[in-house]
C-alpha cells in the first residue's frame, strides 16, 4: 500500500496529465461525422508519432561507443519520423480532396 502511495506521490504530475488527457481525448472527438473517421484516424496516427521524441532522447543519451544502442536508436528515429511525416502528409492529401469542391 505504501509503495502505491509513494509511486503516486513521485509521479503525481504525470498521473494528473494522464487522467485529464483521457477525458480531453474523449471530449475532443465526441461528435465527429462518419465522413471524417478516416482522416481523423490518420491524423491521430500521425500524432502518436510523437514517440519519435523518445527515440531522439535515446540517441542523445547514448554513449558514442555503444553501437547496438546507436543502431537501434537510429532505426527508431527513422521509423518514428516515417510515422510522423507519412501520417501528416497522407492526412493532408485526404483533406485536400474535401476542400477542392467549389
Amino acid at each position, binding site marked *: 500500500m505504501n509503495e502505491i502511495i509513494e509511486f503516486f506521490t513521485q509521479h503525481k504530475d*504525470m498521473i494528473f496529465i494522464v487522467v485529464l488527457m483521457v477525458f480531453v481525448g474523449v471530449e475532443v472527438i465526441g461528435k465527429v461525422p462518419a465522413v471524417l473517421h478516416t482522416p481523423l484516424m490518420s491524423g491521430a496516427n500521425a500524432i502518436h508519432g*510523437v514517440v519519435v521524441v523518445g527515440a531522439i532522447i535515446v540517441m542523445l543519451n547514448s554513449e558514442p561507443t555503444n553501437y547496438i544502442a546507436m543502431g537501434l536508436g537510429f532505426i527508431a528515429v527513422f521509423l518514428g519520423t516515417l510515422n510522423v511525416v507519412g501520417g501528416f502528409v497522407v492526412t493532408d492529401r485526404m483533406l485536400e480532396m474535401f476542400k477542392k469542391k467549389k
Partner: protein
Amino acid sequence: MNLDIIHIIYLFASVTFILGLKMLSNPKTARNGNILAAVGMIAAIFGTIFFHEGEVSNVIYGLIFGGIGLGTVVGWLTAKRVQMTKMPELVSLFNGMGGACAALIGLVEFHHNLDNPTNIAIILAGMIIGSVSFSGSIIAWAKLNGTLKNAIRLPKYNILNTLILIGLFVYSAYIVWSGTYSEAHLYGLFTAAILYGILFVIPIGGADMPVVISLLNSFTGLAAAFGGFLYGNQVMLTGGILVGSAGTLLTLVMCEAMNRPLFNVIFGAFGDGDTAQAAGGVSQGTIKEVGPSDLAVQMNYSNKILIVPGYGLAVAQAQHVIKELEQLLEDRGVEVAYAIHPVAGRMPGHMNVLLAESNVDYDKLKEMEDVNPEFSQTDLVLVVGANDVVNPAAKTDSTSPIYGMPILEVENAKHVVVNKRSMNAGYAGIQNELFFRDKTNMLFGDAKKVLTELVNELKALD
C-alpha cells in the same frame, strides 16, 4: 534555462495536438487542424534536439538528423505517391512503424534502468504494446492489400490467444518482481509480444480491419505514453494518451456504425463454418443480367438515380468514370446522388475521400440516415462493388452474421442494378438475397470497364 524553454515548447505542442484533433472533427477546419498539429510536432522534435542538456557527440547528431532526413524523404514520397484507394493500408503501415519505434526504445532503455524496477515495468509495458501494434499493423496491412487473403484460424485460436496474453502479463510480472533483468528474458518477451500481435489480427476478417487498425492506433498511442512516463516527457505523454483515448472512442464509434460489438470483432469472426452454411442455404434463385446498352436506355429515362459505391469501386479505380456518368445523366435531366454507407469501403469515410478526389460535389454524398427514406422515390439504384451494406438479411434474417447492422435500404427502389465482378460472396463471406430479387439486375464485370462502356452507350444515345 534550456530545460525551461523545452517545457514551453512541449506545452505549445500539446495544445496544438488537442486543437488539431478538435479541428479534425469538423470538415471546415480539418485541414488546418492537421497542419497545426504538424507544426507542434516539428517544434517538439527540434526542441528536443536543440535544447538538450549535456554533451552530445557529433556522430550522434549526425545519426539523428540522418534518421529524420531519411524518414522524411521516404515517408513524404510514399504518402504522396500512394493511390487514394490504397490509403487504409498505408495508415496501418505508418501505425506499425510508430509501434516499432516504441518497441525499439524499450529494447535500448532496458539496459539503462537495471536498478529501477518501476522503470523496468514501464519499459516492458511500452515495449510489449509497441510490438503488438507493430506486428498487428503489418498483418492488417498485408490483409488489406491482398497479400494475405483469408482469415487464418488455428484450432481454438481464442483460447490460445488469451493464454498467450495472460502469459505475457505473467512473464513480465515475473521479470519485474524477480529482478532477473537479462537479455534472454527481454528478447523472449519481445518475441512473444510480436507473436501475439500476429495471432491477434490474423483470425480477424478483412471487413473488420478498419476497427482493428483504429484499435492498434490507440495501442501505439499508449506505447508512446509509456515512453513519456519513463522520461518524464510531457509531450509524449499528452500526445500518446490523447491518441490512446480518442482512438479508443473512435474504435467504439466505428463498431457502433457496423453494429458489431468490439468483443465480436476480436473474438467472434465473420464467415465461420456454421454461419456460412446457414447463409448458403438461403435464397438460391435465378439472377437476371443486364448489359450496358440496355442499362443506358433505362437510366436515360429515369427521373432519379442513386449510386451506392463500395470497395469494388475503389479497387477498380472507377471513381472518375462514375463522376463522368453522373455528369452525363445530369445533362439529361436525371437527378443523381450518392448513398454512402458509414462503413462502405475499407474504412469509414473511405468512399467520401475517393469521390471527393474525382470532384464529386460534397452535397451529393448522402449519409445513410438521410438517404434511406429516399429509396422508395428512386427509379433506379446502381450498386457499384458493394455487397454487405445493401444485404436485406441484416434486417430480416436473425441467423445472418450481419443481422442488426444498419443497411442502405436499396430494395425499396423501383429497380436495382448491381455491378459486381462475379457472384462471389462479399467480404463478410455471406450470400446476398438482393441479387435474386425480381427487381434486381446484375451487371457483371470490372467496375471501371463496365461503367466506361455504360458512359459510351449513353453518349451514343444522342
